[in-house]
């Protein structure tokens, strides 16, 4: 009886996943506050947009990663798939395909890699860790083999649009003939990230496929006995993750206006960290796109803020590692209650 009273008393306090998300959001705000003190340039419109741009690639990967993690799996191949998608798009442009269809080819190549991941995991019954580890090496190898490990450059200005363009950019010509940027504009990648996150969240919360993704991660056998097509659900999640990795590849390569077959190494770990910091459980059944976006921004802000404070890249890795362990620890405490 006292137990139920306790529950009703605590009803006004956030519980479970919303508590985790709230604490992540609080961490993000604290980070922003702390970095504003350590470096005066941190809290400026320009830097804010830079963070947005830098986070968009990790954010896109984290959306797909979250879907996969909720099914109880993991996708280690996204960094390599990102590179392979870029290579496919680059080669297509070199072969004379216009930019838009070439990018579509790139994204399709990513989706195909994800589809193969899904097939290997469900039909060959190989654990996600091993299957996607294999794909990580295969996709990287194919990308390097196709290009001879050399970057593909001179892809034309149109290829750089996606990564470097922005909405509402205001530039004024000064008297001395030099342009002055009044407002740098909202970068396309940031808008793309918001759109994909909204779509991802919608699919996960409002559509049958999302419900099935949660059920598969929560109790695979129960989902199967309830008539959920478990294999199809998993293949869907891995394909989505691959397609999003392809899209992230387009954004990244477009920003560089060069296809680098060795780009994106270890990006999967940032994406996994973003999902986990955002409250996704590697045991499956728990997670949200909004949480993962907060997680992606925590990583983005940490990287950017530490850079601006002049912290070395090695120290950054140490700090992010500690943050990931801390997030998982909080998750465990939550599950024990």
């Amino acid at each position, binding site marked *: 009886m006292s137990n139920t009273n306790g529950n009703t008393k605590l009803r006004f306090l956030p519980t479970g996943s919303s508590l985790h998300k709230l604490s992540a959001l609080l961490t993000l705000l604290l980070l922003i506050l702390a970095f504003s003190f350590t470096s005066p340039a941190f809290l400026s419109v320009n830097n804010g947009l830079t963070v947005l741009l830098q986070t968009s690639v990790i954010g896109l990967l984290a959306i797909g990663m979250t879907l996969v993690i909720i099914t109880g799996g993991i996708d280690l191949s996204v960094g390599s798939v990102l590179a392979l998608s870029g290579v496919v798009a680059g080669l297509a442009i070199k072969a004379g395909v216009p930019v838009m269809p070439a990018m579509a080819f790139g994204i399709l190549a990513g989706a195909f890699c994800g589809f193969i991941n899904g097939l290997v995991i469900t039909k060959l019954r190989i654990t996600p860790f091993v299957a996607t580890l294999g794909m990580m090496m295969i996709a990287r190898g194919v990308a390097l083999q196709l290009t001879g490990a050399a970057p593909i450059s001179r892809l034309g200005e149109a290829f750089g649009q996606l990564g470097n363009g922005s909405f509402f950019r205001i530039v004024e010509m000064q008297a001395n003939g030099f342009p002055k940027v009044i407002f740098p504009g909202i970068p396309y990648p940031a808008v793309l990230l918001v759109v994909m996150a909204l779509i991802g969240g919608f699919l996960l919360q409002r559509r049958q496929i999302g*419900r099935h993704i949660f059920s598969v991660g929560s*109790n695979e056998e*129960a989902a199967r*006995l309830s008539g959920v097509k478990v294999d199809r659900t998993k293949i869907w999640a891995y394909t989505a993750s691959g397609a999003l990795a392809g899209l992230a590849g387009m954004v990244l390569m477009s920003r560089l206006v060069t296809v680098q077959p060795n780009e994106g190494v270890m990006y999967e770990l940032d994406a996994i960290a973003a999902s986990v910091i955002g409250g996704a459980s590697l045991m499956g059944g728990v997670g949200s796109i909004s949480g993962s976006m907060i997680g992606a921004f925590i990583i983005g802000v940490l990287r950017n803020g530490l850079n601006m404070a002049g912290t070395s890249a090695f120290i950054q890795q140490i700090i992010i590692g500690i943050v990931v362990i801390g997030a998982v620890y909080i998750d465990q405490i939550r599950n024990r209650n």
Partner: protein
Amino acid sequence: MLDANAQETPLVQMSEIYKHFGGVHAVEGVSVDLYPGEVVGVLGHNGAGKSCLMQILSGAMIPNGGEIYVNGQEADLKSPHDAKKFGIETIYQTLALANHLDAAQNLFLGRELKTRFGNLDEARMHTEAQDALRQLNPNFKNLKDPVAKLSGGQRQVIAIARAIYFQAKVLIMDEPTAALGPSETSMVADLTLRLKDEGIGIFLISHDMHDVFDLCDRVMVMNKGRNVGTFHIEDVNKDDILSLIIKGTLPDGWAPRGESK
């Protein structure tokens, strides 16, 4: 002795079902039938093959041999989804609930209600689930909590509600009262009789002899993967059944005990 319903088409007819895992023969040539409005008890030791046989009927397991007929039609049950299409619903011993989802989400799992645009219709699923659950247990609360937080009895109620909400014609109950207290057990017993009156055929797996003699019209005993006897409940007593379960044979000098014969 079992020809009382012979003129009627059986609701379910499983004939010569085989299932083996490597060298282990879990089910060997078992045949059983079920008529509308009938409760058939499926008895046997742990590992006698009864759960395996029932999982074959619920589509969760694919047999190595044998045929299944539902209403006289051959049914090829390759997945739980197929079985549900034939109106075969199962209350699993493990309950088969997804712990992170709430009661309504579990009840409609795999058969979600949708709006015109194909989105999940959470509001309708919630009210429907509330009605279905309150019918079984008027005090059912915490509909929005993940089922991991609910009591064993509440979880059982969800599993039962899921089976009957979708108008089952055949119901498989695998130890439905194992996790329940006395009042909930009698609720399940009442429910079983009510569903039987509605013409639903029920396979009941149970270790509880009380339940078996109170609820079943016939019993079928399995021993080491074989069907060692199917009897009208009046024709046998507890000792006969125990002998079948343990030894696989009837006591010496057994004759039908019922007045009907």
